[in-house]
């Protein structure tokens, strides 16, 4: 029993660590957002004497998420983690969000191994879908599971390697009927 409790607390600790990482990564998002909020009035307030407002507005629009994107989605995007070596197989149109298959194929960079994986669904009420830790790290990892999605969104996969570096990949999908809240 004590053994099981210890195992459980280990797993919970792992989640806490990732949670802390997540809260740290929210800061760049805040910064990015306030910069954006300032940039828009700047671009709009000058009268139509120059054409610069249009171009600057376009530049801003180019670099931002849709307005309904969650803070987590924005912060993940803002981190600009490289996605090399991570291939996601995820349906572009899933129809119902109850069981959307996701296949993750990870190939670690030369000399490194895969230590942990995290699947995040930023638009879900609880974005933490799955946290994986590999006590015996492997060079390549192919993992599949079925996700429950509350809304159309990008599914994010964050991979941690043996040297502590992180990489992340995301794949979009469209849901016509939401899971989590109703139905099955």
């Amino acid at each position, binding site marked *: 029993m004590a053994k*099981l409790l210890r*195992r*459980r607390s*280990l*797993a*919970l600790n*792992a*989640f806490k660590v990732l949670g802390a990482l997540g809260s740290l990564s929210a800061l760049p998002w805040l910064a990015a957002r306030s910069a954006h909020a300032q940039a828009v009035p700047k671009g709009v307030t000058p009268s139509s004497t120059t054409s610069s407002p249009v171009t600057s507005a376009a530049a801003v629009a180019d670099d931002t998420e849709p307005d309904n994107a969650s803070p987590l989605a924005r912060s993940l995007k803002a981190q600009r983690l490289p996605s090399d070596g991570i291939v996601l197989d995820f349906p572009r149109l899933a129809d119902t969000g*109850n*069981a*959307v298959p996701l296949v993750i194929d990870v190939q670690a960079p030369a000399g490194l191994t895969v230590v942990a994986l995290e*699947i995040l*669904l930023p638009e*879900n*009420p*609880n*974005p*933490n*879908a*799955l*946290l*994986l*830790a*590999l*006590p*015996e790290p*492997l060079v390549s*990892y*192919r*993992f*599949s*599971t*079925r*996700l*429950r*999605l509350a809304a159309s969104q990008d599914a994010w996969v964050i991979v941690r390697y043996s040297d502590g570096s992180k990489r992340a990949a995301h794949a979009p999908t469209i849901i016509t009927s939401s*899971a*989590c*809240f*109703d139905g*099955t």
Partner: protein
Amino acid sequence: MATSIRSRLTLVGLARPGSTIEARWIVGHPMETGFRLDDGGQRIKQNIITSIRVRVNDKPVLDMVPGTGLSSQPYFAFPVVVPAGGGTVTVEWRDDRGDSGSTQQAFVLVP
């Protein structure tokens, strides 16, 4: 705690010592998110698996902490390395109501 929830573990591929094969595990767990309301408008209590541990011959190879973002009857496919002398793969799970269970499958070694 005894449970009526069943799970199934399948090992796919030729189990040559040292090779990596795929293990597939499915468990008939409701994975109730805790966000849904029943017909009376009452919130349905959350019931999700909180930890899954995979071991090969008692050596841990994979620890998973699921959240509510997994489908009901969750399914996982993951690689396992076949040990030189063969052995068994064990998957143990535990949920937030204290239910738990485990499944075992032996490698059928191919010379």
